[in-house]
């Protein structure tokens, strides 16, 4: 029953399309990844922006993708159970504060617990408002975001202003220990074969080496555990009866109720897990900076929500979305000139799109795409460095562009966002 979505064989759409998209989502994802690598190598070679695929950018991308991915995973739990969670941002904010507070006193392990706990409290509040009191989900989420910002400021004023360990109104004392990290022996440390390969700047090979070295050198163990949460979530939600029950609350709560699923309790559990995961995302932000800072989340909870939508409410898809947004975030932090190279990428992609649209006789859409592609190309040729204000919103603009290109074929859980009252429907 739970595998129905994936096993339907689509009608053949020609040999090339079948080769590219057949064989299920795994092969498709591999092709996409390969295509992306080729595209990025070409763009890197033309623009000479080695930061595009360098291992340092890649490890930063991984670091930044994890919080976004965790927020998205939180959103997945909540929305699969039928509760829209705009409050992810607020729960993430609570998570950063909890991690900072516990982390400066008792180290990184406590930071993990503290952040998850604070995030889960935010989730509990959201569950209380939406499930028990039946408040509109978006309204409750927005209120939680406002409230969370106020609470953490208040707590910081209370605990950090006169703290001998440091900190202030907007930041905590530094976290007292760092989570342990490791590098893959031989390949990424010691002889560092991948590093050597990366420095050669060969087309494709060096790019692949950069990507691999980025995700295998100096990676915190907790990061790997966080990445593992994605397959774990998949197994939990799609391969266990608990997952089936949880998802049935998001598809048809009345039917689930009639089959004996405790809908309210499932929703509570889902939303609390959701808050805990968003809080965990906040913990990782604190780990990156080594300190809690106000506005550390900078809208990443919302980006996580966008990654969830982009990923079509599936674990694999949201991981891809988180990777994309983490990458654009890393690029904007590491190199302002590399962001200009993204324009070349946009130009290439849109040129392909334009040709496709024209071949399909859609001249207007094709024309618009072509014009934008040319504009992006001209921008790439003429702009050297973008001003910091413009660069700062690269991930958000990417999110918006990706959503506006992708959000038409998506299917959200059927009862997502609807207030369910037992016996009233």
């Amino acid at each position, binding site marked *: 029953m739970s595998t129905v979505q994936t096993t339907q064989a689509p009608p053949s759409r020609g040999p090339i399309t079948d080769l590219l998209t057949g064989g299920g989502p795994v092969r498709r994802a591999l092709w996409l990844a390969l295509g992306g690598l080729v595209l990025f190598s070409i763009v890197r070679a033309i623009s000479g922006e080695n930061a595009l695929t360098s291992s340092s950018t890649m490890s930063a991308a991984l670091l930044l993708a994890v919080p976004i991915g965790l927020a998205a995973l939180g959103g997945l739990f909540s929305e699969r159970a039928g509760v829209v969670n705009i409050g992810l941002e607020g729960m993430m904010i609570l998570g950063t504060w909890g991690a900072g507070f516990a982390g400066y006193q008792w180290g990184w392990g406590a930071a993990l617990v503290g952040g998850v706990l604070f995030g889960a409290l935010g989730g509990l509040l959201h569950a209380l408002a939406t499930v028990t009191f*039946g408040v509109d989900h978006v309204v409750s989420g927005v209120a939680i975001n406002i409230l969370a910002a106020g609470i953490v400021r*208040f707590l910081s004023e209370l605990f950090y202003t006169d703290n001998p360990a440091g900190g202030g109104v907007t930041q905590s004392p530094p976290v007292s220990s760092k989570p342990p990290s490791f590098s893959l022996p031989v390949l990424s440390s010691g002889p560092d074969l991948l590093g050597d390969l990366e420095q050669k700047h060969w087309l494709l090979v060096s790019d692949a080496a950069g990507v691999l070295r980025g995700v295998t050198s100096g990676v915190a163990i907790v990061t790997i555990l966080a990445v593992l949460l994605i397959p774990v979530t998949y197994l939990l939600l799609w391969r266990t009866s608990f997952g089936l029950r949880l998802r049935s609350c998001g598809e048809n709560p009345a039917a689930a109720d009639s089959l004996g699923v405790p809908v309210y309790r499932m929703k509570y559990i889902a939303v609390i897990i959701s808050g805990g995961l968003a809080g965990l995302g906040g913990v990782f932000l604190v780990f990156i900076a080594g300190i809690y800072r106000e506005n550390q989340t900078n809208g990443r909870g919302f980006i996580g929500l966008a990654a969830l939508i982009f990923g079509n409410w599936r674990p694999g898809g949201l991981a891809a979305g988180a990777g994309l947004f983490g990458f654009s975030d890393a690029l904007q932090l590491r190199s302002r000139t590399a962001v200009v190279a993204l324009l070349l990428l946009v130009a290439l992609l849109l040129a392909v799109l334009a040709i496709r649209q024209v071949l399909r006789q859609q001249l207007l859409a094709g024309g618009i795409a072509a014009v934008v592609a040319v504009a992006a190309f001209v921008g790439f040729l003429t702009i050297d460095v973008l001003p910091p204000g413009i*660069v700062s919103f690269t991930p958000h603009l990417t*999110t*918006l562009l990706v959503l*506006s290109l992708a959000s038409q074929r998506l299917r959200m859980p059927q009862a997502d966002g609807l207030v369910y009252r037992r016996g009233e429907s």
Partner: protein
Amino acid sequence: MNRLRRLGPALLAPVLAVVVALVISSAVMAALAVNPFDVFGVMLDFGESPTQQVTAMVVIVNRAIPLFLAGLAVAIAFRMGLFNIGVEGQYRLATIVAAAAGAAVSLPAPLHLGLIIVVAVVVAAIWAGIVAVLKVTRGVSEVISSIMMNFIALGIASYLLTGPFRGSPEGASIIATADIPESGQMPGLNTIFDVFGLANPPRQLYGFLIIAVLVGVGIAILLNRTRFGFDLKASGMSPSAASASGVNARGMVIKTMLLSGAVAGLIGLPDLLGNTHSYTTDFTAGLGFLGIAVALLGRNKPVGIALAALLFAFLDRALVPLQINDYPSSVVTIVQGTIVLAVVIANEIARRVARKRAAGGTAAPAGGPSTGDGSTGAAPTPPPGSTDQRQGAQA
């Protein structure tokens, strides 16, 4: 009397929510070893001399004007079931462009003011329009896109401020746009204090108050007395029913967002035209998000929003005195946040109580003690308001 019976319960829910929120935030403060009564004492202390007291009131009204406009902007979209969370970005971008435009030209006073206002309105409306177009043509949820547009707007604003629109000299501690000349500054309304024989405070009461009131009345008429307002409300309550009766759903989304954005463009102007005369790095921020809270508290009705704006402005005024007296000033944000959460919950309970009564067919006894019975007609947001009446009719 009849009107009172209709209004009383509608008022009861928010008032009760405010009381509950005060109790909760007091408990939070007490738990963290801050004496809540001292804090509320500071909030209520307007000073001794008449001048101080009038000044405090001017500060409150001046703060309430942008809050009211922000609440109004959010509420217009809310009424149609759209969440314009992008008000923050819309007004910040609009204000900086308007400030630069106002500083760049020199016109006779009324024209100059008009130009600044028009520029702000148009910029914000376009910014909100992008969200609407993305929703209508590409199906992008306006919640996500308007949040992303916030970040983009703030990035562009910071670029404009440090780049092309920079008016302050190199190395100044606060970066600002060039000052708007005298003809583009809005005079204060302090003469009314003389008329009423009150002490004339040193602080100017913003002249933008008049425009805000006019906009509020205009929007109230538009929403309650015109075809457009009816279509808007109908689309919010039941999109399918609205489109079946000939409302162009896509067109309504775009029109509503444009209108919401246009009002959002005004938010920064009271401060810009009445006080700062330039956009700076520390220009009033966060009004867009507070506007959401104000709109929820005011139940999306212009009069309610005005009251909610005054309440929030009253709380905001306490920020400085609290800091002076060494209390954590963020209690204000906590109180505001709990008020919002309490209000949405109270509204929901009130709606449900009303629904039960309607379904049970029992007429509400006059002066019933429960939370907001009969708020059926008063609650604009929740769509089931209409089902209540239908069920009542059947019963």
